[in-house]
């Protein structure tokens, strides 16, 4: 579960006050809003990448408001993928597992499992340079899912993709939810994406969260 209560954020002249919402365990939440309305700031606050002024963030049953990003165990897919230019796709998928000092056999097995599932097995020895938008997003998704997080945060993962790739990734995201039972918060400005994917659809409008319920 993701529960955000009375969250206040400020950066320079921009601020968000008293933001509250909840995404039940295993649900697919979509947060919609116009560009620049603060969707990404909320996502970053949940990931621990942006300090909060007040309020609380609960993941599962724990208040993680003051926890480091590493301690929160959240998978995060930023808008541009933010792949590591000096690492191969294989190293991306193994990165979080190596940090957790898993044994090499387990890492190899997990990397192959993810690569086959996300259809990036043929890219394992490639560097990010030269990957297409869809391939880069699948690598970023695999990297975020590699350590089996309980929460997955995605910032406009489909916005830079062409129509056919977007359709393919929508199917993949449905599959992610079904197979992993992870709680997802997906930020987008597209109502179509919200209708396709969201169990819980939220709209951020002029600093206020409006729950629109199930989209379909």
């Amino acid at each position, binding site marked *: 579960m993701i529960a955000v209560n009375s969250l206040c954020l400020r950066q320079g002249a921009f601020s968000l006050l008293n933001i509250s919402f909840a995404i039940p365990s295993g649900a697919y939440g979509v947060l919609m809003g116009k560009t620049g309305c603060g969707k990404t700031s909320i996502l*970053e606050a949940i*990931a*621990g*990448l942006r300090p909060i002024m007040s309020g609380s963030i609960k993941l599962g049953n724990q208040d993680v408001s003051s926890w*480091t*990003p*590493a301690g*929160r165990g*959240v*998978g*995060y897919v*930023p808008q*541009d993928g*933010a*792949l*590591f*230019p*000096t*690492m191969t796709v294989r190293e991306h998928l193994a*990165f*979080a597992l190596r*940090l*957790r000092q898993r044994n090499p056999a387990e890492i190899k097995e997990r990397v192959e499992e993810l690569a086959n599932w996300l259809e990036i097995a043929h890219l394992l020895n490639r*560097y990010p*340079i030269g990957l297409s938008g869809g391939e880069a997003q699948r690598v970023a998704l695999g*990297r*975020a899912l*590699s*350590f089996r997080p309980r929460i997955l945060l995605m910032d406009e993962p489909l916005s830079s993709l062409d129509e056919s790739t977007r359709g393919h990734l929508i199917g993949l995201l449905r599959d992610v939810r079904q197979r992993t039972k992870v709680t997802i918060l997906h930020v987008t400005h597209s109502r179509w994406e919200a209708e396709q994917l969201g169990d819980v659809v939220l709209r951020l409008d002029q600093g206020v969260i409006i729950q629109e319920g199930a989209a379909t």
Partner: protein
Amino acid sequence: MNGDGPPAAGGSDRGFIICLAILGGSYVVLIVWMLAADLFYTTPGHMLASLQSANIRFAIKLSLISCTITTVLALWVAVPLGYLLSRTKFPGKGAVDTILDIPIVLPPLVIGLSLLILFQTRPGQWLEYVTNKQMGFTLTFVVLPALLALNAFLLLTGRWWLRLLAASITAAAAVGVLTQFSFGHELEVFLQRNLGTRITYALPSVILAQFAVSTAFAVRTMRVTFDQISPRTEQVAQTLGCSRGQAFWLVTIPQARRGILTAGTLAWARSLGEFGPILIFSGATRMKTEVLSTTVFLELSIGDLYAAIAVSLLMVIVAVAVLVITRIFGLRGTGII
């Protein structure tokens, strides 16, 4: 159809490109012309004869040693400082930024003079006294135990290769500390005899004079390098389980590799060409503080133009070789080479 009326005056771009090439190319021609003039002024025989001089051989050796030590020290400072300036906000950041420009804009002679004055102040004289008279004591009873403590910390927190490195250094430091109890005095005397030295008018002053100028260039390069690396990758690494320090080492530093090489090359090349501060702060004593740039000055002052040109050409060759090697090394693994 292109619409009504006459076509826009597009024409050929050749004239424009030729104008740019003439304006910019004049500078390239000047450099090549200067080097060619040097080259044709001397002969291989003159060059070989000059390079067989014991003084010049010493200057070559001292230049290579001092420039390399300076480069390591400059990077040791430039990488963390460049990162802090690029990624963090702190009170007085603007002032620090301005201070870092001072060595770049100041006349080199002024830097040498300032260093000399610094070592006339009480803290400077104390430092001179420690390195000259107390080096053995300081290394034995302060530096070795501090190294031991630092590496014990690294052993507990670092990655496996960092632990291995820390274990090796700790073992070496432990030997040093243990020996304090059995033959501490002998160790102190040994270190004093081999490492005790003045700073001014000695090798450390050459390194310090080079460091004072070249580090500013390395810091600027590192700051630009870190500015160009997206902080987003570091943030993602933190969500994957990295501490801020791990994200820096595992994700940012590998991306900064070419910038580090560039900063190191720049610091090395700048150190090689440093003259003013060395002349003031270290003197130009043959077989003691003479580096290649001071050799050119000394040979000119005694009227040996051929030797001065030979050393100048040698400096050009070394500088070009370093630049080429670094560029090739820097591009390896990037898909370009």
